[in-house]
């Protein structure tokens, strides 16, 4: 009997049920509190559209986070890549926009990976330094002015453009995780780097690939972000820090549900749940200045539930 329960607890259905229950719970709470201005079908569709942007970044971060690495330069790269994309779009249209975002994004990932590999410094620290640098580079590139995406290039700003692009990103993620060696190797490196190295895995190469993949997804996120907001302003002073966290929340969901072999579903649903919570608070009339409080508290709750260390484990 207890065996059956143990078996059930590890099956993917258990993970799905858990996710579904959380979704229904939060939806239910806010729906009861503010039945009139929250949670209609069209509302939900809007929440989903904003949440999938973060889910795309969450997918990218997954590669890095399962390896035990971290990246604080995601936000800075969203800003930088979207500015590069918008500037190129002024000359080359959609091609410039898409390739600009993806190319700049991936190139930044390459830079981060190379620096991380060669400086031998923890990723968290390298990326804090690089965030400072990329932020100022973005200001230089933008020439200190607000960059606006031309109205005729806004296919990805709403349905179905944004959903198609995000969907493609999720499919790509699914393919990479299940049908290439990259997913296996990233997990292996995260589990035990020494053993992985001895198994002939080129650890440095796959860390570099991890950073490049992450920032390729960040490039996609840049397309979606600047399309959704239509403008992008580069600012210094760690202002991009906050952009790191929304995708990160999804990644934590993904890592937590890894054992049910469903990280992508968890990232998408997780971001959707957070979107519901945000919008629920807004519907309750919370002032906009309190949004950071909600971000902080939500993230704290998520990590407390999902990223807890084992008893006796060393956590720095």
């Amino acid at each position, binding site marked *: 009997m207890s065996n059956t329960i143990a078996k059930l607890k*590890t099956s993917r259905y258990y993970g799905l049920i858990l996710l579904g229950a959380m979704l229904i719970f939060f939806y239910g709470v806010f729906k009861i509190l503010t039945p009139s201005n929250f949670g209609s079908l069209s509302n939900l569709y809007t929440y989903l559209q904003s949440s999938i942007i973060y889910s795309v970044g969450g997918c990218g971060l997954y590669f890095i986070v*399962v390896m035990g690495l971290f990246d604080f330069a995601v936000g800075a790269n969203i800003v930088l890549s979207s500015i590069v994309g918008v500037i190129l779009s002024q000359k080359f249209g959609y091609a410039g926009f898409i390739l600009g975002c993806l190319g700049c994004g991936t190139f930044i990932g390459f830079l981060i990976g190379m620096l991380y590999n060669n400086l031998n410094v923890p990723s968290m620290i390298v990326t804090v330094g690089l965030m400072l640098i990329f932020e100022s580079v973005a200001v230089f590139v933008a020439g200190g002015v607000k960059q606006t995406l031309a109205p005729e290039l806004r296919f990805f700003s709403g349905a179905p453009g944004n959903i198609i692009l995000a969907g493609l990103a999720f499919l790509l993620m699914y393919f990479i995780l*299940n*049908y*290439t*060696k990259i997913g*296996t190797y990233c*997990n*292996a490196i*995260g*589990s*035990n780097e020494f*053993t*992985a*190295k*001895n*198994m*002939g*895995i080129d650890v440095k190469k796959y860390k570099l690939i991890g950073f490049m993949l992450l920032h390729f997804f960040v490039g996609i996120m840049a397309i979606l972000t600047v399309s959704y907001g239509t403008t992008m302003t580069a600012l210094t002073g760690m202002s991009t820090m906050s952009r790191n966290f929304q995708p990160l929340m999804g990644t934590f969901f993904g890592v937590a549900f*890894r*054992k049910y*072999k469903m990280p992508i579903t968890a990232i998408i649903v997780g971001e959707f749940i957070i979107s519901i919570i945000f919008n629920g608070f807004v519907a309750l009339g919370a002032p906009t200045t309190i949004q950071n409080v909600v971000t902080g508290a939500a993230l704290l709750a998520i990590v407390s539930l999902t990223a807890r260390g084992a*008893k*006796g484990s060393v956590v720095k």
Partner: protein
Amino acid sequence: MENKVLLVAEHIDKRFGITHAVNDVSLTIDAGEIRALIGENGSGKSTFSQMLCGIYTIGGGTFTLDGKVLHCRNQVEANNEGVAIIVQEMGTLSGLTVAENIFLGHEEPFMHMGVKDTRAMNKEAQRLLDEYGFGRIKAADMIDLYNFEDRKLVEIVKGTYMKPKILVIDETTTALSQNGRLELYKIMDAIRADGRSVIFISHDLGEVLTHTDTISVLRDGEFIATVQTKDMTEDDLKRLMVGREIGSAYYRTDYGEPVSDEVVLSVRDVSVPGQISHVTFDLHRGEILGFGGLSECGMHEVGKAIFAASWERTGTVTLADGTQINDIPTAIKHSIAYASKDRDNESVILNESIRNNIVLPSIDDLASHGLLSGKKLTAFADKHAKDMQTKMQNVGQFVSDLSGGNKQKVVLARWIGKGSDILVLDSPTRGIDVKVKQAIYALMAELRKQGKSIIMISEEIPELLGMADRIIVMKDGELNGEFLRDPALSEEDLIAKMV
């Protein structure tokens, strides 16, 4: 009968900094042979075999397998050349499925233009598991769902499925239960029957004598001899390993000395979920109480439980004066010392000086009005490190630079300095060379004479027989038998209660 030579090692050499780990070793191994590689710790046997398997780069000399010179840079390349290794530590990786673990680094057969055929991979892995008789392990499951033993079995499949010409088994058996060991011996025999070879590294000389054909002995990185197993006894091997007769002073020689009735520590109904249940015993003044059993029997947890280092312990540990031991600082304050089996993580702080490692538990005693004097701390550490004859430059040296034996000396110096009356020593001589071993046994006998009490948890039965006044044998987390010191007591008596 003329055998075909499979592996030729010529002038193999390796240095780590100033240490000459492997010094000009040459040997040959025949096809269809199980060759033991023995030697004290630091004798170079692991380094030698890890060079063969591409884990370390070869410092000098050549390995020739089946007429072909090997240049492996990692395990996968070694696998492709027909060399595989099963390591001592956990060799499977969490977060991966069983199948992914088995084929890690060998995904090529399942790759079609960069796309991995996951279904075929799972199917093949399951076929292999079934073939080995481990069918209850499911290839598509996450490896995290399985326990240590099963994961070791997966590793055995991983190490042997590609039918390596030569398989290195590096001290794997210490991690295995009796059942696991039997599975491994079966596989070794199968490899021999197939005309392939095994290099078997083990500290357990009994196992070496029963399961190998020939034995090569290394000492201080140098090749000593290769001998036929059937001509050897355990004492012969020890002599070869140490290079001298082991004196009778190796263990205690006294028998029949009475042990005081005075109870210094009583353990009542102590349980740790999943580890030990309802452990109850008394420890007397001036007694060496041995704990024996298979490695997963829970005896190591007993040591932690006494020291109050276990998570979620129930039951009581009480001193003679009625003090309850419920946390580590209380345990230390009331004169309990603990040396863990996991020396590098739980006993010493590697990235700290010898000085700070030794003074740490005694720091309150060394402070006057809460104030510390650097001089006093250094003098204290220096005295106790030197009393233990720790090989070091000075006490400012970091522990990470020391050998296993010297690390253990630092651990013992710390507790002798603290003046602890009850010493819980978990595997005190694990991975330590014979010379230091002897010193530790002498120290234990000396402490016992001073009226200190020692709990010695050990996986080495001769050590228990030789040192303990009383031996408690554990099985499946429970006490399963108790023996008093007696020259007539044999290993078989203890083993009978262990399995």
